[in-house]
């Protein structure tokens, strides 16, 4: 019988949750690396027992941990993230030039085919790659060296490369999303990049439809429809059907189109999920009601999913990497909150259950579907 393993990164450690395919009883293991921030953990699609974790604190910096037994034991691998050449400057909050400085790894994206190949999206925004299981890292510097790089500015959370999407149809095509620069695409395995932000409008920047400068919070793709991308921008939910060449807004009837995560149903490429948040200054759900919104039409028409979610006095946030789906039938949806809850639905979002209530603030959730 299939089973599900959830990898939950929090402000104070990592947790591994497992359940059989019914997804009613969950075993919780952890915290691993107690006291450390775990921005992200992700397993290799080619070998699910190979898991990478980004571990950091302000005191002792960045570590990468690797497990080869599904998260039971871990070993630290390489943590030397050095920008290629003279990194130069980007633009600071106040508009002045600021040196590129490595802060942390936000996101780890293992190759679809090779367990030893893994990409890391880092702050200050850059893309790194390891081809030896995380022991050594090299920057794919063409992204940071894009001519627009000196104009990139940080969002409130820092200038981070937070999303990496790999096209399952074309190993040379990959996407990276940066707050607050926008989305970039490579069609040559990272050797060159170009911004793909046409159609985005952001009224918080001087030129609201500029080529770069948009605070993209998260992008998502269904593996069987890799030309269709969904985006939760700072404000606005967006969709592209041409690999990011152009975007159109699909916020539709959402109560607010500000938010962080966005994800796609495992078996219904037009079914997508967001968690509307009141605003960029009020990082909590509207009216204190935690609602996931689902669209079965790829956007524009949204329904609130509330069954099992707190509908009063709820003032948590759901961060960009803190939502995931499994591949079982019916599709499981999971998300974690800054209040330390992890919610699970085993029926595509119709009903929700808190499977953890008192974790540290959740930074990331990934789901592995195991045979």
């Amino acid at each position, binding site marked *: 019988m299939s089973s599900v393993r959830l990898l939950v990164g929090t402000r104070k450690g990592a947790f591994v949750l497992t359940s059989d395919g019914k997804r009613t009883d969950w075993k919780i293991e952890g915290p691993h690396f107690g*006291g*450390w921030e775990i921005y992200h953990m992700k397993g290799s699609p080619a070998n699910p027992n190979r898991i990478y974790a980004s571990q950091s*604190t*302000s*005191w*002792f*910096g*960045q*570590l990468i941990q690797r497990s080869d037994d599904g998260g039971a034991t871990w070993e*630290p691998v390489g*943590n*030397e993230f*050095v920008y290629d050449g003279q990194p130069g400057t980007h633009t600071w909050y106040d508009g002045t030039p600021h040196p590129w400085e490595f802060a942390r790894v936000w996101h780890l994206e293992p190759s679809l085919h090779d367990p030893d190949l893994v990409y890391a999206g880092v702050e200050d925004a850059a893309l790194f790659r390891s081809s030896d299981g995380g022991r050594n890292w090299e920057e794919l510097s063409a992204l940071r060296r894009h001519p627009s790089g000196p104009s990139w500015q940080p969002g409130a959370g820092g200038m981070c490369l937070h999303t990496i999407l790999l096209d399952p149809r074309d190993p040379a095509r990959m996407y990276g999303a940066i707050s607050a620069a926008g989305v970039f695409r490579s069609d040559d395995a990272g050797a060159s990049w170009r911004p793909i932000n046409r159609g985005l409008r952001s009224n918080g920047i001087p030129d609201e439809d500029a080529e770069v400068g948009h605070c993209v919070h998260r992008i998502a793709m269904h593996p069987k429809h890799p030309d269709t991308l969904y985006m939760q921008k700072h404000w606005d939910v967006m969709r592209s059907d041409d690999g990011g060449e152009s975007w159109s807004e699909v916020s539709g009837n959402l109560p607010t189109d500000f938010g962080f995560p966005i994800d796609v149903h495992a078996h219904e490429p037009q079914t997508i999920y967001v968690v509307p948040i009141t605003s960029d200054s009020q990082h909590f759900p509207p009216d204190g009601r935690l609602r996931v919104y689902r669209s079965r039409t790829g956007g524009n028409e949204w329904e609130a999913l509330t069954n099992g979610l707190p509908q009063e006095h709820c003032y948590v946030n759901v961060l960009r990497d803190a939502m995931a789906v499994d591949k079982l039938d019916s599709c499981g949806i999971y998300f974690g909150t800054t209040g330390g809850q992890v919610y699970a639905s085993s029926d595509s979002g119709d009903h929700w259950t808190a499977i953890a209530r008192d974790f540290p603030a959740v930074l990331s959730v990934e789901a592995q579907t195991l045979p």
Partner: protein
Amino acid sequence: MIRVILPAHLRALARVNGEVCFEITGEITQRALLDALESRYPMLRGTIRDHVTQRRRPYVRFFACEKDLSHQPCDAPLPQAVADGTEPFLVVGAMAGG
């Protein structure tokens, strides 16, 4: 014999309990001590000082003999009591934040 006391997080990372003890040949300086420590425990590289600049991380402090040696030049000799193992060299996570 040099004695080093690591903060709890780094003891866990290096999988050691209590003090770390080792011999160093040559002059006993902060750089020589940290080089020797990282050589024995490579997982500590980058956690105490920056990989590239070799500067102490901002929230890390070095104490010994009831003195803060954090701002001493890294090639200056450490106190004789550290060099002869009478006193430990403390790597400390600064009290900051939560």
